[in-house]
């Protein structure tokens, strides 16, 4: 490709009609409290694994809703289930069960 002195980013629009909602739906059926998440980021501030990686429950929740399951799969590997996010969540999301169900969903749909 010709170099015009600038780079083009790949399209980052999210087409909500085309996203893969299977995983989100699977988790929602088993743990409906994921729907309460307001992405406030309190969980991100406390995350034990956040010391070492980019993991935060807020990111997981957001990515899951956007159907970006491949990034979810990679990120969720780092969660230690320590439960601090659950204690600080202002909306009472049952975060630990959400994480467990996501991993189960990934196994189920072989994502």
């Amino acid at each position: 490709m010709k170099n015009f002195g600038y780079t083009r980013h790949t399209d980052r629009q999210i087409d909500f009609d085309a996203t893969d909602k299977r995983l989100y739906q699977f988790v929602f059926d088993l743990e409906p409290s994921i729907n309460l998440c307001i992405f406030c980021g309190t969980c991100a501030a406390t995350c034990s694994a956040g010391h070492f990686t980019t993991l935060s429950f807020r990111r997981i929740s957001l990515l899951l809703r956007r159907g970006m399951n491949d990034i979810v799969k990679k990120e969720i590997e780092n969660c230690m289930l320590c439960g601090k996010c659950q204690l600080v969540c202002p909306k009472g999301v049952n975060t630990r069960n959400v994480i467990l169900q996501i991993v189960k969903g990934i196994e189920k749909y072989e994502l």
Partner: protein
Amino acid sequence: MNYNHFVIPFAAGALILFAILVARYAYWIVQMPRSDRRKAWTGFFRPAFFRSLWEVFRESLIHKKVFRVNAMLGWMHMSFAFGWFLLIIFGTIETKFHKHKVFNMPYDPIFLRYFEHDEKQFFFSQGFSFVMDFLLLILLAATFLAIFKRIRSRFFGMKRTTRLILGDRIALYSLWSVFPLRFLAESFTSGLHHNGGFLTGTAGIAFSSFLPLQQLELPAWWAYSSALFVFFVFLPFSRYNHIPTELFLIFLRNCGIKTSGRFSGFTEFEIYSCSRCGICIDKCQLAEVRPQQTQAVYFLQQIRRNILQPQTTFNCLQCGRCTEFCPVGIKADTLRSIKRTDYSLEYGFSYKYAEEKIPPPALPVDVGYFAGCMTHLTPSIKIAMENIMKKAGVRYHFIDRDGTVCCGRPLSLSGNERQARLLMRENKYIIRNSGIKTLVTSCPICLRVFRESYDLGIEVLHHSQYLLRLAEEGKISLKPTDAVFAYHDPCDLGRGLKIYEEPRMLIARCGELLHTQQEKNEALCCGNSLADFVTPEPRKQEMRDHTLQELLLNNPDALITACPLCKKSLTYGSNVPVKDIAELVAENQ
């Protein structure tokens, strides 16, 4: 020889029961690990055997632990178990005296009154008929109490009773009918032949005045024998299976066999020893807030029926109150954590970062402080700990000052033992490399896993134990105040590790400690246990409020706890300050 066709149901029932039990127990014993089997065989020749006999008398016959829950409930259980036991013993002796023979048919004592109604006086015959009638009266009263308990269980100190399945119901109704039918049959015979004691004799005379006893006698004995048949046949498939199984469980436990990391023959003995008495239901805090049948009794029932739901397995606080109150002593919380490993994930959770961390070089200090994730969430505790140790002049190494990987217990509570090992390996590496001799942690969750699974080879203390030691050595001096405190026992620290006294002794040095209704081994959970994956947040808050209500009943100035998770959880709902024991010590130093 005494014989009538009606002995067949009893004899057949007893044979079927015996065959099923022998086959089952043999299978379980074969399934037990070899080392456990050896322990059991040698147990016959050790004091464990006599200890078991004493425990069988205390728990299987007298039901001491049930008495502790409620006296009426204990009386009902004792009169059934001990009463029936004595009835069998005295019946057997009576038969042998009566026939002047050592051997008799096994059904002879059961139907003695029908077969032997001659007036010949044998040794102590009057005494025997009095004792037998007296025991029958006790058992009839117990039957009445049992029926009454089904209607008004609150009278027996139980808010809820177990919801029974079909097999249980049939066995229950047949048990209810056994003793009234025996009473009728013996009374009818006595009405015809005058061979009864004070109860059946009197009733016999009364019945003979208005009933055609000639026609009714045989049907009554048939009914009695059939009731026994139904009870015996349904016993192995119902809650009453605990009667024979508990004897084995007590013996095996006294031989030193414990529930290990997986299901084996011993756990089968444990599972089938559950009598479904339902004492654990009221003691479970989840029963207050959720209608789901998730308590230990239902968990064990589902395992026995092979219909265990993941929902049941994971909906448990693992607070250990059910185990604490179980009259049979079944370790339901351990069984549940074993069952959780069935749902462990094959992939997921790899923790690459946990392998890359390089531990700091060993420092020349003896004491290491491990705050734990939850203490980092409630920083006032670690600040207090640092202040105390600085003031006391202790040279220490703060192992996870900048945060480290989790201790692994929250993960193993989810059943993922293999992944938890990855975290444990990392922490073990860090702790071992630091060269410390005493590890102090503020988090009972970490403490429990350090002690139970880490095998560190050094002293591991909770900070309350360490602070008490500092106080006793005179390194810190505590100023007594006139404030009053209530103390909340964290589950992992109290029932989990049996550390009850150290925090209390520290509080007593700082002020007055109030007693609460349910404390020490009976303490309530704060509601936010990491073991529960299912209960929604609002229900957890209800549990927390209920716990707080009880703790704050006597209006303390502050609520003291010894767990950062409990502190975080209780702070949200409390109207008095909630402090960790370290904060209290730091304030009064």
